[in-house]
């Protein structure tokens, strides 16, 4: 009985801290419709800042708290709203996810840069004073956390339902334009919401840091607990969020306490860490169907879609270049080329899912990991083994997408995030996958009895796979399936009224995307020969998403460029890559880049694709003027300077139909 009470006390404490963090998330989401993936990262940075003030610089605790919660956090919140997330609420959900993922990467980079990895600890408040309530010992930290969470709840209640600006916060979700006509300033309303939300993230981080420890990733992943709690209230209802947070805290505490009584518990040591993820899946299954949103038609200027013939020509060019490289390069360099091809295939799966379908997956490397494990465990290094690995990944992908069948794209993205964490902590470390930090061996692939043994040949084969999948992706985009994908991305309601069952389209899309990622993983396993679970950790998926967002997630060329970019980042020796002292800086640059560019899903490629039309539209007429004898083909590039408001894409597609050559340029640069 005493033990039960102790677990309850710990559970209430954890739940209270989750509730504080979750309420900040709910506040920002429900007033600006931007789901802040970086919420946990914000809390992490401010927990470090609080440590810096109170421990390193020795300021009194009360002053540090005021500085962090009252000054730095609100100002950062206003800055985030003004500079980073403004206008994202009306953008497609993919854009806001990409930007906040980029923000997460950037914040982790900032934390590493300012506070390099080291042993740090925050002390609990009044550690020497314990309160004995019967057989149960309660710490002041726990009491303070619970009291603070009650105060936060009361404060938010008063703000949201008793003040005019709070009412305006709730109003601005529905219709910020109408709020303007009422005379309200929706910018101030949004800034206030972000200021309060950021402070609450910081408060949650500071209260949990003594318990979790000052760790970059553990504190960042706090967001999963927070949003699992918030999910119970469909990300908008604060009282239900508190209920969810308490349920999660208590459940987690009981699991930790009573796990030893469950048979086979030694295999489930990761279970407490993934409780939020499991809790989240349970709630996703129980949530009611999301209504179809109407009036969501937002024209996007899409990247050009090359004809199959052209893509085949440039794909062939790419293969030839890699064959030449295979003849001349050292094995270690070729390994990098092969890795880039792997990244490229994973990114192609994102082109299919995010670029065409409009859904975001935050755990694409995890699916690659599933494929790699399946391939290695099957021990069938041939096309059959590869196919099975792909099918297993696809099936796992379908399993992830099924619970969120009835819900919007945001929930799908959150489900993938929970899934990535689940795989990281439980499945990949369990005995039937990698075990803990154990490398897994895989053999090189053989195709119809021909063994592809040398690294050079294997790299060529991977490039061939990349080109083949590119061709399939382009073919899908040009075919009826591609039209369905674009149509569902642009208006689900319109597709619904046409009689299209978009739910199965979504599951099929997600499964095939996971299958492609699984293929990449299986090929990587064959290339490396040994793989470890660290190759597929969740954070890598975020980096991948950020890279592909920078280069453009709507085109095959964007995937190719993004893959080369990511490979260079990871493995280039010296300034970049593994160098601990610059990695933080690198994350900052990456994050900032993606925040700047990620809003336009066409990424940098959007500008690259414009270059030929600038040359023909701008330079050629000038040249033709100067040198009348030159036979230049001056085409009408009226579409070249079109603005982003152009609805649909026929103009865009036809204006730059023939610019796939970036692919081979990129390879030449490499």
């Amino acid at each position, binding site marked *: 009985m005493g033990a039960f009470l102790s677990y309850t006390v710990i559970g209430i404490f954890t739940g209270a801290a989750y509730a504080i963090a979750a309420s900040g998330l709910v506040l920002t989401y429900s007033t600006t419709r931007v789901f802040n993936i970086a919420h946990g990262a914000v809390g992490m940075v401010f927990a470090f800042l609080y440590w810096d003030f109170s421990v390193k610089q020795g300021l009194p605790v009360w002053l540090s708290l005021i500085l962090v919660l009252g000054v730095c956090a609100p100002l950062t919140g206003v800055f985030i709203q003004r500079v980073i997330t403004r206008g994202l609420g009306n953008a497609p959900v993919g854009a806001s996810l990409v930007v906040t993922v980029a923000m997460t990467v950037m914040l982790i980079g900032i934390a590493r840069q300012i506070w390099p990895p080291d042993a740090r600890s925050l002390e609990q408040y009044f550690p020497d004073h314990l309160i004995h309530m019967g057989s149960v010992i309660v710490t002041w930290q726990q009491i303070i956390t619970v009291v603070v969470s009650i105060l936060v709840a009361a404060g938010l209640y008063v703000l949201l339902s008793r003040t005019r600006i709070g009412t305006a916060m709730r109003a601005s979700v529905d219709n910020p334009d109408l709020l*303007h006509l009422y*005379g309200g300033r929706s910018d101030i309303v949004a800034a206030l919401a972000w200021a309060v939300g950021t402070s609450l993230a910081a408060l949650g981080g500071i209260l949990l840091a003594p318990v979790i420890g000052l760790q970059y990733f553990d504190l960042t992943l706090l967001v999963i607990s927070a949003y699992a709690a918030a999910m119970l209230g469909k990300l908008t209802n604060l009282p239900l969020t508190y209920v969810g947070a308490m349920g999660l805290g208590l459940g987690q505490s009981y699991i930790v306490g009573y796990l030893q009584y469950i048979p086979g518990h030694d295999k489930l040591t990761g279970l407490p860490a993934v409780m939020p993820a499991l809790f989240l899946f349970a709630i996703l299954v129980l949530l009611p169907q999301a209504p179809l949103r109407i009036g969501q038609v937002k024209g996007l200027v899409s990247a050009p879609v090359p004809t199959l013939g052209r893509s085949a020509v440039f794909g062939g060019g790419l293969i030839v270049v890699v064959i030449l490289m295979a003849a001349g390069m050292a094995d270690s360099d070729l390994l990098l080329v092969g890795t880039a091809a792997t990244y490229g295939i994973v990114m192609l799966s994102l082109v299919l899912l995010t670029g065409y379908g409009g859904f975001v997956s935050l755990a694409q490397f995890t699916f690659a990991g599933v494929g790699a494990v399946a391939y290695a465990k099957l021990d069938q290094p041939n096309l059959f083994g590869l196919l099975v690995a792909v099918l297993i990944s696809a099936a796992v992908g379908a399993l992830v997408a099924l619970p969120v069948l009835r819900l919007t794209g945001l929930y799908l993205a959150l489900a993938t995030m929970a899934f990535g964490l689940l795989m990281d902590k439980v499945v990949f470390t369990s005995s039937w996958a990698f075990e803990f930090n154990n490398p897994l061996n895989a053999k090189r692939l053989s195709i119809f009895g021909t063994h592809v043994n040398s690294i050079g040949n294997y790299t060529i084969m991977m490039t061939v796979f990349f080109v083949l999948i590119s061709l399939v992706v382009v073919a899908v985009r040009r075919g009826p399936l591609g039209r369905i994908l674009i149509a569902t991305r642009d208006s689900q309601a319109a597709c619904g009224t046409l009689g299209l069952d978009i739910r199965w389209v979504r599951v099929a899309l997600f499964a095939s995307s996971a299958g492609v990622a699984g293929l990449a993983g299986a090929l990587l396993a064959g290339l490396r020969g040994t793989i470890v679970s660290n190759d597929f950790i969740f954070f890598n998926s975020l980096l991948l998403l950020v890279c592909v967002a920078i280069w453009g997630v709507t085109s095959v060329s964007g995937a190719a460029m993004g893959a080369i970019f990511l490979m260079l980042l990871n493995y280039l020796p010296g300034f970049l890559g593994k160098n601990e002292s610059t990695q933080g800086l690198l994350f900052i640059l990456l994050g900032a880049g993606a925040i700047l560019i990620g809003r336009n899903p066409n990424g940098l490629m959007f500008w690259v694709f414009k270059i030929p039309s600038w040359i023909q539209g701008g330079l050629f007429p000038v040249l033709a003027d100067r040198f009348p004898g030159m036979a230049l083909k001056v085409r009408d590039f009226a579409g070249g300077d079109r603005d982003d408001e152009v609805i649909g894409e026929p103009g865009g597609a036809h204006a730059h139909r023939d610019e796939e050559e970036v692919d081979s340029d990129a390879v030449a640069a490499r």
Partner: protein
Amino acid sequence: MSVPILECVDVHAAYGRIEVLRGVDLKVPRGAVVALLGPNGGGKSTLLKVISGQMEKTSGHVHMAGVNVHGASADDLARLGLTTIPEGRSVFPNLTVEENLLLMSYAGVAPDKVFDTAYSYFPRLHERRYQLAGTMSGGEQQMLAMARALTSDPALLLLDELSMGLAPLIVDELYETVAKIAESGVSILCVEQFARTALRVSDYAAVMTGGRVVATGEPNEINEIMADVILGGAA
């Protein structure tokens, strides 16, 4: 002649490359009700968006009470005495009636006074004050929207398609309210497709088609030429 409360001079506006307003000239005299009529796609709603600050014009001038309001934002104008009731149900569906009314106080009238005025005009709103606005009937929602016109004591009121999606009986009731507001001396510019309803309460009328004002005059004159304009005769 006194300075008109609203004067548009050669206003142009475009959605992307599609020019919708092609040089609109329009005057609303102080204290008058002007009906802005015309077929679909004539640019009426766009003109209201430009006047209310929701959309930027590409060229031309908008003067309010003699002041050029170039670049003023919608919320600035709202606090300065311009009340715009956009088309559709312009209420916040997930807030209660009372919370909707509370937000109307942003225009500069104290909340208590807003409640008093709204409830005395529309007792039905008082009965439903704790109900979510989105759960009321269309007519009641439009009542709530009109309450803003009544309570915020505007210098100029812009009404866009009050009749949209409502039963004729309710439309008549709403226009009676418009007439009442007009009696209190508020200048009104009201966009309407149902010409007869709007002409009944207006002092002047203007007809827009193809992005220009093609005719202005007294209501009875306009009533006679409406059929020609809409069927393409006078344009």
